[in-house]
C-alpha cells in the first residue's frame, strides 16, 4: 500500500543517453520532419526536399554510428531498454548503408517515362480516370521517404532492443511502413495491393504469436528485459512449460520476419507484388534487422536454455535451406526466384546461428557465430539490392519484364547489365572472388567449429542445388537467342546507376579483400546484456 502513497517528488526521470542514441534519434527526427514537409511544403518542392532530408539523415546517422563504433563505448541505454553494443552498431551501419542505396532506388524517376515506381495516388482505383488524371499531373506520394525513414529507424531499434516490449514496438514501427510501401506499386497495382494485404494479415498473425510468446516469457521470468530473463533462467525458477512455450512462440514471430520455413510463405508473394525497389529494401534490410534481433533474444535472454531450443532450430535451418533451394528451381519469375533464394540464404544464416549456440562462452578459437552472421548479412545485402535494381531496368510496355523467359538472350542485348546481374548471381551462389563466397565460408566454418557438421553438410548440398538455378539464369541470359520481341533495357538515371554501382563495388571488394569488414565484424564482439 505504501507504494500508492509515494510523493510525486520521488519520481526520477529516466536517464536517456542522448549521445549514444543519437543515430536512432536523427532518423526518427528526420522522419517527423518529413511528415511536416508533406503538410507545409508545396507539392513541386517535396520530392527534392524529402530526398535531401532522407539522404542527409541517413548519412548523418551513419557518421554518428561510426563515431560511436570508433569510441567503442558499449552500454545499455534508456534504463536498459536499448543495448548500444558492438553488434548493434555494426548492424546500424549496414542498415544505414543499404538504406541509402534503397532510397536512391526509390527516388529514381527516369526509367518509367519520368515517373517513379510508386503510385501517384494510392487511393485512386487502378485504371480509373482519377488515376489517369493524377498521372498526367505527375502527382506522386513523396510520403514514401518519411515512411522509409520510420522503417529504417524501427529496424535499427529492433536490432538493438534489449527489452521484449521495445522489441515488439520496434517490430511494429518498421512493419507498418513496409505494409504501406508494398501496396504502392504504380504498375500492376492490384497484385501489389494483394501483396500488401497478405503481408499485413500474415504479419499481424505472426505479431500475435510474438506477443503471446512475450507474455508467456514475462510469466516465467517476471520481467521483460533480456538480461532479467537470462537471470531467471540461471536461477531456474518458474515453470519450464511456460518457458518453452514462450520460447517457441517468440521464435515463430521472429522466424516469420527472417523468412524461415515453414513461416516463409508470405515471402514469394510479397516480394513479387511489391514495387521492386521496396522488395530490394525488404529483402536486404528486414532480413538484417530480424536476424540480429533473433540472435540477440536467443543468445542473450535464452542462451541458458540453448540445449532446449537448438534441436528445433536445427530442423528449421535444414527445412529453410532445402525448401528454399529446391523450390527456387522451378520458379519462372525472376523476383520470385530471388525470393526463394533469400529464403535459402536465411537457412544458411540459421546454420551459423544455431551451429554455435554457445556464443560468448569463449570456448571456440575461430570465427564466432555472431561475427559470421554479421559478415554474411553484409555480403548478402549488397548484391541483393543490386540484383533488384537490375530487375527494375529490364522493361517492356507493361513495366518490368520479370518472367524469366523474357530474360533470354539479355546478354546479347546488354552485355554490361547481364554481366552485372550474372555477377550478383554468382555471389549468391558463393563462387570464389565474390562476397558470397567469403560469407558462406564464414557461416559454414562458424557452424563447423560449433559442432554442427551435419548442418554444414546439408548447407553445402543445398548450395549445390542453389548454384543450379543461379547458373541456369546466367545460361539463359548468355547462351539463348535474343527473341524478336525482347524487352528493352531502360537507361537508368543517376540514382539507379549509383545504386547498382555501389552494390557491385561492395560485392567485388568483399570478395577480393574481405579482411577489413571481417575485422570490423570481429571487433563488434558479442552482445552485452
Amino acid at each position, binding site marked *: 500500500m505504501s507504494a500508492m502513497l509515494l510523493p510525486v517528488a520521488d519520481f526520477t526521470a529516466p536517464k536517456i543517453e542522448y549521445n549514444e542514441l543519437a543515430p536512432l534519434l536523427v532518423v526518427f527526427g528526420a522522419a517527423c520532419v518529413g511528415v511536416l514537409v508533406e503538410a507545409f511544403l508545396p507539392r513541386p518542392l517535396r520530392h527534392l526536399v524529402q530526398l535531401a532530408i532522407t539522404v542527409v539523415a541517413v548519412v548523418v546517422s551513419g557518421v554518428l554510428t561510426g563515431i560511436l563504433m570508433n569510441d567503442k563505448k558499449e552500454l545499455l541505454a534508456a534504463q536498459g531498454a536499448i543495448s548500444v553494443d558492438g553488434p548493434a552498431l555494426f548492424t546500424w551501419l549496414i542498415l544505414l548503408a543499404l538504406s541509402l542505396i534503397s532510397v536512391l532506388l526509390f527516388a529514381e524517376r527516369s526509367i518509367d517515362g519520368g515517373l517513379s515506381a510508386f503510385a501517384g495516388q494510392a487511393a485512386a482505383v487502378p485504371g480509373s480516370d482519377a488515376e489517369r488524371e493524377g498521372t498526367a499531373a505527375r502527382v506522386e506520394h513523396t510520403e514514401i521517404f518519411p515512411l522509409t525513414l520510420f522503417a529504417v529507424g524501427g529496424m535499427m531499434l529492433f536490432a538493438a532492443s534489449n527489452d521484449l516490449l521495445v522489441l515488439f514496438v520496434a517490430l511494429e514501427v518498421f512493419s507498418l511502413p513496409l505494409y504501406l510501401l508494398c501496396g504502392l506499386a504504380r504498375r500492376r497495382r492490384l497484385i501489389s495491393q494483394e501483396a500488401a494485404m497478405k503481408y499485413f494479415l500474415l504479419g499481424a498473425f505472426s505479431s500475435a504469436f510474438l506477443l503471446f510468446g512475450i507474455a508467456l516469457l514475462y510469466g516465467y521470468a517476471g520481467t521483460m528485459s533480456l538480461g532479467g530473463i537470462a537471470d531467471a533462467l540461471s536461477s531456474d525458477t518458474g515453470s519450464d512449460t511456460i518457458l518453452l512455450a514462450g520460447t*517457441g512462440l517468440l521464435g515463430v514471430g521472429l522466424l516469420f520476419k527472417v523468412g524461415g520455413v515453414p*513461416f516463409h510463405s508470405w515471402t514469394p508473394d510479397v516480394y513479387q507484388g511489391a514495387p521492386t525497389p521496396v522488395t530490394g529494401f525488404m529483402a536486404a534490410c528486414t532480413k538484417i534487422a530480424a536476424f540480429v534481433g533473433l540472435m540477440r533474444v536467443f543468445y542473450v535472454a535464452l542462451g541458458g536454455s540453448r540445449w532446449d531450443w537448438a534441436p528445433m532450430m536445427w530442423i528449421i535451418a535444414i527445412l529453410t535451406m532445402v525448401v528454399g533451394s*529446391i523450390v527456387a528451381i522451378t520458379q519462372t519469375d525472376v523476383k520470385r526466384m530471388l525470393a526463394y533464394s533469400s529464403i535459402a540464404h536465411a537457412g544458411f544464416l540459421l546454420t551459423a546461428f544455431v551451429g554455435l549456440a554457445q556464443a560468448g562462452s569463449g570456448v571456440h578459437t575461430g570465427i564466432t557465430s555472431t561475427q559470421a552472421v554479421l559478415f554474411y548479412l553484409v555480403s548478402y545485402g549488397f548484391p541483393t539490392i543490386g540484383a533488384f535494381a537490375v530487375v527494375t531496368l529490364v522493361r517492356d510496355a507493361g513495366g518490368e519484364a520479370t518472367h524469366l523467359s523474357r530474360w533470354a538472350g539479355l546478354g546479347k542485348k546488354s552485355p554490361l547489365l547481364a554481366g552485372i546481374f550474372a555477377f550478383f548471381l554468382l555471389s549468391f551462389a558463393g563462387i570464389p572472388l565474390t562476397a558470397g563466397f567469403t560469407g558462406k565460408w564464414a557461416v559454414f566454418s562458424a557452424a563447423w567449429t560449433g559442432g554442427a557438421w551435419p548442418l554444414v553438410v546439408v548447407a553445402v548440398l543445398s548450395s549445390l*542445388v542453389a548454384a543450379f538455378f543461379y547458373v541456369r539464369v546466367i545460361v539463359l541470359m548468355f547462351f539463348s537467342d535474343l527473341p524478336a520481341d525482347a524487352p528493352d533495357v531502360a537507361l537508368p538515371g543517376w540514382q539507379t546507376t549509383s545504386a547498382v554501382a555501389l552494390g557491385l563495388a561492395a560485392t567485388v571488394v568483399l570478395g577480393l579483400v574481405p579482411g577489413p569488414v571481417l575485422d570490423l565484424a570481429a571487433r563488434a564482439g558479442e552482445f552485452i546484456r
Partner: protein
Amino acid sequence: MSHELTWLLVAVPALSAAILLLGGKATNAWGHLLGTLAPVISFAFGVVLFFQMRGRASEERSETVRLFEWFSVGQIKVDFTLLIDPLSILFVLLITGVGSLIHIYSIGYMEHDPRRRRFFGYLNLFIASMLLLVLAADYLLVFVGWEGVGLASYLLIGFWQHKNSAAVAAKKAFVVNRVGDIGLSLAVMSMWALFGSSAFTTVNAGAEHVSKTWATLLGLMLLLAACGKSAQVPLQSWLLDAMEGPTPVSALIHAATMVTAGVYLVVRSHAIYEVTDAASTAVVIVGTVTALAGAIIGCAKDDIKKALAGSTMSQIGYMMLAAGLGPAGYVFAIFHLLTHGFFKANMFLGAGSVMHGMNDDVNMRHYGALRTSMKVTFATFAFGYLAILGIPPFAGFFSKDKIIEAAFADNTVIGLCALLGAGITAFYMTRVMLMTFFGKKRWAEDVHPHESPAVMTWPLIILAALSLGGGALYFAGHWIVDWLEPIVGHEEEHPPVSALVMTLITLAVVAVGIVIAVLKYRRDIPREAPAGSPVTVFARRDLYGDALNEAVLMRPGQYLTRTLVWLDNRGVDGLVNGLAALFGGLSGRLRRFQTGFVRSYALSMVFGAAFVVVALLAVRLS
C-alpha cells in the same frame, strides 16, 4: 664486371620475342630484322664474356649471378640465379652463334611465308629459353627453360599448321616430351626432399652423401628427362616426325641445340652419376642403342630430312654414350656436341637449300645430279659429310674418334657397337650424298634447280668452315680438355690398343661403309621406292617404334578412356540426370504448397508454430 649482366643474354631475345609476338602486324615490316638482331647481340655479348673468362685463372672462371629471390615456401627457397662457367659459355656461343646464322638463313628461307614475323618471334623465344636452360644455376630454373624450349619446339614443328601432318607431329612431340618432363619434375621434387634445395651447388655437394638407391633413382629420373628431350630410345619417336617443321627449325632445334639438352643435363649432373654405376650404365646403354637405332633408321629413309634426323638421333646417342662413361667421356660428349652442332646444322641447312631449289620436294629419289646446279650447296654439304664421317682433318674426326676410344677403354662390347655405328653412318651418309648430288637427274618435269640466294649460302659457307676447323678446339693443345676440366673433371682413357691403331681401325670401318654404299647406289635409282627386304621395311618403319608405342601405350589408353566415357555416360550422367529429375520433381511438388491463399499460408504457420512448441517440449521431456 660484365658477368653481372649475364641476364642480358637471355633478356635480349626474350624482349625481341615479346615485341614480335605481342606487336602484331605493326611489326611485320621489320620483324625479321629485329628477330635476327637479337641473337646476334647475344652472341656478341657472349664472345665478350668468353674472352673475359679466358683472361681469368681456371679456378676463377665460374661466376654465379643472383638476380632476385624467386620464391620461398617454408624451408624451400629458390633464387633466380644464373651460372656462367666454362661449360655454359660454350653452350651460349653455340646457341647464339649457330642460332644467328640460322636466323640469317631464315630471312631468305621464309621470305614468302606470310607469317614470317611470327616465325622469328618463336625462334627468339626458343633462343631465350635455351639460354635460360644452360645458364640456370638451379634445376628448377633449368626446368623453366626446359619447358620453354619444349613450347617453342611445339610451336615451330606445327608452324605450318594448315598441314595436318605438321599439327599431328607437333602434338606427338609435345606428348612424348611430357613423358620425359615427368622425369625432370620428379627429380626436382626429390632433390627438395633429399637436399632441401635444387641449386646446383647444394645438389653437387650433397650427392656423395645420399644413399646409393636415391642416387640411382635421381640418375634414372634425369635420364628419363634427357631421353625425352634428346630423342633417345625409348622416347625417340617424335624426332623423325618433327621434321614437319620448317627446315631452319630442324637445323637449329632438332639438330644443333635443343635435342642436345639431354646431354647437357647428364653432364651437368655429373656429381650424381659419379656415385651411381647403375644409372651411368643405363646412360651408356641408352646411348649405344640409340646410336645404332638412329643409324639403321637413317639407312632406309628416302626423305632427306628424315635421313638426317635418324643421323641426329644416332650422333646424340654417341654423346650420351660418352656422357655415361664418366670423367673419361664428359669432355668428349660436349666436344662432339659442339662439332655436331656445326656440321649437322650445316647439312640441314644444305638440305633446306636443296629443297628450296626443288620446290620443297624432300624425296631423295627425285633428286640426283644436283652437284652441277647447286655448287655452293654441294660443296658445303660435302664438308658436313666429311665431318660426320670422321675423315681427318674435319671436326668430326677428332670428336668421334675420342668417343670410340673411350668406349673401348670402358668396355669392348660398347666399343664394338660404337665402331659399327661409325660404319653404318658412313654408309647412310654416302647414300644421301649419292642420291642427292650424283647419278642421273630424276627431277619432276617442272622443277628447275637453282642455287639459293646469298643470304642462305653465306651461313652455309660459315658452317662449312666450322665443320672443317672445329676440330682445332682439340688438336690445338687439347684446349677443350683444359677448358672444361675444372667443371666436369677429366681422366685419360687407356684403350686396349694404341690410339693410332684405333684411329686406323675406325677409318677402315668407315671406308668399308663408304664402299658398300657406292657399290649399292652408283647404279640407277628408281623414282619409286622398291619393296625392299624385311630389314629395310623394319628400318623404314622407324624400327616399329610407333607401332610399339601404339600397342603398349595408345591402345590400352584408348580402351581405358572408352571405358571411362561409357561409365561416365551410363553411371555418372545417369546419376546426375536422375538427381536433376528428382530435384525438379520435388520442386514442382513443393511449389504446390504456395497456393496464393492467405488462409492456407496462415494454416501452415499454425502447424509450424505447433510443431515448434511440441518439438521444444519433446526435447525437454525426452
